[in-house]
């Protein structure tokens, strides 16, 4: 298992390099000029020097190499510095945003908590709703609960988040006025009232994403339970006189959780990607919103870094899913 994990980790490096190369070469084709916003009175030779200061004068492969060094070598040093108070990264050039001229990672760290709160909370909530529904509707297959449950999960899976989000805003913000339609990211939780406000503004985005995630995961849970419920070992367990609760919740559930856990792990990066839309609907000032504004502003280092972070998440969680699969299911041997 350890060698497998190690081998996968080593394999992840060329994958990540390739992905960063794809993103980088795609962005190289960008028609926009980062100097477009500079006033026309600035003479062309000054503009040329500004361009060089952004690192645009260098050949493409040097630019790519510089970005790699900055992202994989300088940024970790900055992280170590900020944790331990050392000065490894002093004087080294970091990945700078063209929009704000500040380090990209600093902005990412500022935006991360909003995304993590909304996305993380909704994913946890979605999983917590999905599992019991999936288990029960598989146990009582074709019952009224199962029929309604599968229909609702099909609807939740088909209705796009940008529609459910807007619908919730129309109902609960415009007509009823219960919840704010815009997520206030400057809000600080200091006492009970402000805590309640935080809850109120989180309800709608979290509910939208949770519904979507719950729909997908409960379908998997149900299918996986159904696969296991007819197996011989279930009959054996019943025949030896175990209670129904033990049979379903211990024997069947533990075996059906194996594929579901990997699906949950694989879904995490997708949720981050899907949150781009939800963040846009509720004006959450998170990573997705940052990506969209930087795409519109032609801020290539920011787009490059953010897209790469999304890719990094996908690769990491794929690895986690594979390792989990091996740990949970003793029948699977990678070596």
């Amino acid at each position, binding site marked *: 298992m350890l060698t497998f994990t190690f081998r996968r980790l080593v394999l992840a490096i060329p994958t990540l390099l390739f992905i960063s190369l794809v993103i980088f070469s795609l962005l190289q084709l960008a028609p926009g000029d980062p100097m477009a916003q500079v006033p026309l009175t600035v003479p062309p030779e000054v503009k040329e020097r500004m361009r060089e200061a952004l690192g645009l004068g260098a050949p493409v492969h040097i630019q790519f190499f510089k970005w790699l060094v900055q992202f994989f070598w300088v940024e970790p040093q900055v992280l170590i510095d900020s944790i331990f108070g050392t000065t490894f990264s002093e004087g080294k050039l970091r990945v700078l945003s063209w929009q704000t001229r500040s380090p990209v990672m600093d902005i990412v760290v500022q935006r991360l908590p909003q995304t993590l709160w909304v996305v993380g909370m909704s994913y946890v909530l979605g999983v917590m709703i999905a599992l019991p529904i999936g288990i029960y509707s598989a146990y009582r297959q074709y019952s009224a609960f199962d029929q309604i449950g599968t229909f609702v999960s099909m609807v939740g899976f088909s209705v796009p988040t940008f529609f459910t989000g807007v*619908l919730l805003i129309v109902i609960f913000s415009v007509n009823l006025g219960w919840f704010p339609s815009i997520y206030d990211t400057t809000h600080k939780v200091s006492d009970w009232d402000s805590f309640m406000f935080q809850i109120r503004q989180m309800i709608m985005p979290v509910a939208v994403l949770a519904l979507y995630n719950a729909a997908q995961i409960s379908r998997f849970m149900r299918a996986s339970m159904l696969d296991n419920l007819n197996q011989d070992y279930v009959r054996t367990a019943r025949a030896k006189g175990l209670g129904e609760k033990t049979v379903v919740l211990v024997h069947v559930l533990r075996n059906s959780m194996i594929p579901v856990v990997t699906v949950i792990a694989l879904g995490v990066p997708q949720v981050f990607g899907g949150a781009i839309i939800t963040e846009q609907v509720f004006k959450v000032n998170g990573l997705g919103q940052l990506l969209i504004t930087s795409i519109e502003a032609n801020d290539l280092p920011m787009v490059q870094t953010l897209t790469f972070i999304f890719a990094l998440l996908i690769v990491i969680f794929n690895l986690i899913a594979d390792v989990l699969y091996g740990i949970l299911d003793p029948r699977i041997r990678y070596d």
Partner: protein
Amino acid sequence: MTEMTDQPIPTAPPRSQWRDIWEQFKSHKGALLGGIVFLLIVVSVFLGPLLWPYDATFIDIRSRNQGPSWVHPLGTDQLGRDMLARMMAGGQTSVSVGITAMLLALVLGSLIGVLAGYFRKLDNILMRTTDLFLALPLLPLLLVMVLLFREPLNAAFGPETGIFILIVTAIGITSWMPTARIVRGDVLALKEREFVLAARSIGTTNFRMITRHILPNVMSPIMVSATLGIANAIITESALSFLGLGFPPDFPTWGRLLFDAVDYMQQHPQRVLWPGLAISLTVLSVNYLGDGLRDALDPRIRGR
């Protein structure tokens, strides 16, 4: 000799495979309903504008912002354009984008899947490519692609065709991977079967083998991914339009209509409802269709 004809002869003709599939498909109520609803949507969206008197781009500024009435069943927008006509025009684009992008993804996915499964030499490199594509963050990349190539394609093909080609290609080349994986798996299993060996022993060439023996046998997973691909493509296109990076405003799609309606959702909430409902209903019906097809085409479930 007369005794011979008295022998019981089979009265029912032998049942064909497609008939079995149809029987199974019919018994799946949701799938049948989904198929009918999807057909209805497609037909009304493409034939509706021929019957409906208003044009989707006809501006009647005097009758702007109207609610539902007999003249305008879905009301009018802020420029007095008839919402029903716009919904039908938007549906044409959304459905065509969905179907075209699905076809592109399907062709790519089946080609790569068959090549990887059939030719052992290609297997490794093609599947590594598929894995790499699966590790790409798709929505951010789609956004970047639309942003980068919108201008040059608009200049080359005109704003409408340009963005259509761009979105279809972008969705197509980012969604072929699941099909390729499924098809490859099936081809790998088929290749070991006796009928393939028999065909090979009479000297069938690789090309004939694939088109004549392999492809017809992997049709069922391809058809299932086709339906799911339509749903995926429609949602992706609407999401892009919703983020303002899809079709231009005078060229409505359901996603674009929803995006435009969000600005007016306080005064005219019903305008949000129509495009959203249309997208959801289409995707829901296609998903049910896919579910039913999967059950009907799976010989292990069929006949139970």
